[in-house]
């Protein structure tokens, strides 16, 4: 495990915390409270995704099914399975993603296809299948506009799909920038910039070049020493969190051309991303997912040591060298019993988090702020 002096001081500060002599019982520590366990999948659950409206949670996994969960008896009610989509894929469904309008659900599968589901007929059904990847698709993501979709695969490529017409998707680009398995694709929250994370330890960003309407790599972010499993933008799109098999969570910050900080830029057009914080030593296994809440700015991680962890930026944090505190984690009997594969913050209810695990469960958590 890698320790840089800067991080060591950060870690030590965290340890010094209990010296303040606050009795645990009296001090309301922030905590992650289990809200509900959503059982039903057979085998490992790979991913969860909230509908943009917040009233549906989609989950998928090894059992080749997508489950759509909703509440019973009003928004405060218990979450139950509303629909089970079973006939879309022949192998594991690795990831599900809602379109920004909420009318479409995309599912990425190890069977090398991406399915697009909608409810136009009254029930959820698959109305388009995106074929072309050579093997397992690992991730799928919709651009903000809803007109573009990205997928990535073990075949080392990232594909951008364009919605040509009703239920017609055309390949707009095949980007061959990574040298290994691509694990995750994510769109920038506001701009049409695509980001991918790979088994080759790097993160890459892509943008459309209007000259030939093709997509090219505009930035490569290297610092992780093993597979980068997942990435997530903050609400402004100026910072990116990444998690890796190397056990670290990294925060990257963008420096635009002509920035006042004297950060050199590769050329005049493209922004430069710099790793401004590395959190080491807190995750004891590979970290499989990260989610940055766009309401509360909390960061959640899903780790191979069965724990969901919540990080919060220190209030006095230097923007060029921010520090984050581990403020809560899923624990003990309530926690997952096996690797946690995914975490997702609810789009409208602050602090509501869903997690998916190898133990076959999806869990809903509520982050409770501490009080001193």
């Amino acid at each position, binding site marked *: 495990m890698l320790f840089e002096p800067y991080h060591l001081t950060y870690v030590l500060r965290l340890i010094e915390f*209990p010296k303040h002599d606050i009795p645990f019982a009296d001090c309301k520590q922030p905590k992650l409270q289990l809200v509900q366990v959503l059982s039903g999948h057979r085998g490992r659950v790979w991913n969860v995704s909230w509908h943009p409206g917040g009233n549906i949670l989609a989950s998928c996994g090894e059992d080749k099914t997508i489950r759509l969960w909703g509440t019973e008896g009003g928004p405060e009610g218990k979450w139950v399975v509303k629909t089970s989509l079973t006939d879309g894929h022949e192998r594991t469904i690795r990831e599900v993603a809602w379109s920004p309008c909420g009318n479409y659900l995309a599912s990425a599968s190890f069977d090398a296809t991406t399915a697009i589901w909608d409810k136009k007929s009254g029930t959820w059904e698959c109305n388009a299948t995106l074929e072309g990847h050579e093997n*397992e698709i690992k991730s799928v993501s919709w651009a903000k506009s809803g007109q573009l979709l990205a997928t990535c695969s*073990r075949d080392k490529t990232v594909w951008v799909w364009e919605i040509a017409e009703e239920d017609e998707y055309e390949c707009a680009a095949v980007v061959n920038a990574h040298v290994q398995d691509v694990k995750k694709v994510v769109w920038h929250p506001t701009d049409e910039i695509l980001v991918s994370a790979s088994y080759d330890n790097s993160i890459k960003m892509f943008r459309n070049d209007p000259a030939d309407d093709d997509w090219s790599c505009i930035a490569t972010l290297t610092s992780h020493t093993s597979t980068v499993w997942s990435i997530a933008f903050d609400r402004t799109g100026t910072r990116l969190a990444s998690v890796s098999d190397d056990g670290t969570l990294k925060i990257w910050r963008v420096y635009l051309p002509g920035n006042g900080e004297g950060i050199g830029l590769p050329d005049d057009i493209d922004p430069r991303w710099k790793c401004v914080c590395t959190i080491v030593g*807190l995750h004891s296994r590979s970290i499989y997912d990260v989610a940055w809440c766009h309401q509360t700015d909390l960061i959640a991680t899903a780790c191979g040591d069965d*724990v969901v962890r919540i990080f919060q930026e220190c209030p006095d944090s230097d923007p060029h060298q921010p520090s984050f505190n581990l403020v809560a984690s899923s624990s003990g009997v309530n926690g997952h019993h096996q690797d946690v594969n995914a975490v997702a913050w609810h789009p409208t209810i602050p602090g509501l988090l869903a997690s998916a695990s190898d133990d076959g469960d999806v869990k809903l958590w509520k982050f409770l702020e501490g009080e001193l």
Partner: protein
Amino acid sequence: MLLSFLQKSKSLIGIGEQQTSPLSSSVSGLSVPNDLQSNSSNMSSSSMDRQSTDQSDHKQFQELIYDYIRSIKDPEKPATLEDLHVVYEEGVKVKGVTPGNVKMVEIEFNPTVPHCSLATLIGLCIRVQLERTVALSNPFKLDIYIKKGAHNTEDEINKQINDKERIAAAMENPNLRKIVEECIQEED
């Protein structure tokens, strides 16, 4: 090293994961740097006793695991991995536990020739065999490594055979699955 210390510290400040189980703060033979140890006044003497019980528990677990992998058949030759000295008892080690007190096991194996193209397949067999046996009743974390210097591309192979997503996908490939099943099936 520092990691286990941090886990202790976190439990002290109430953000750890282990308040529920008294066993959860076990530290298995890890040394904590001196300058940091002073911060941790709660390192009780009882943890030393626990350490020794842990050790015998770990030893038993190692033996259990080894029992399940010794009989895996080589994908090419009509012999077991043990016969071919691909796996051996001292190659199985419990390296520690996670915050939830789940054992972290490391298995080292030695492929027969330096460029053996079947090393990834052997890694796959070991993992699948254990997932279907020991892990069912005793979930644990597994890392599999090739004996250092025993393979031309050991880093690449180590990475691949420890990537759970690649493994899950591999086991959905009917042809690969078939050969793994053949290697791990019990001889009656």
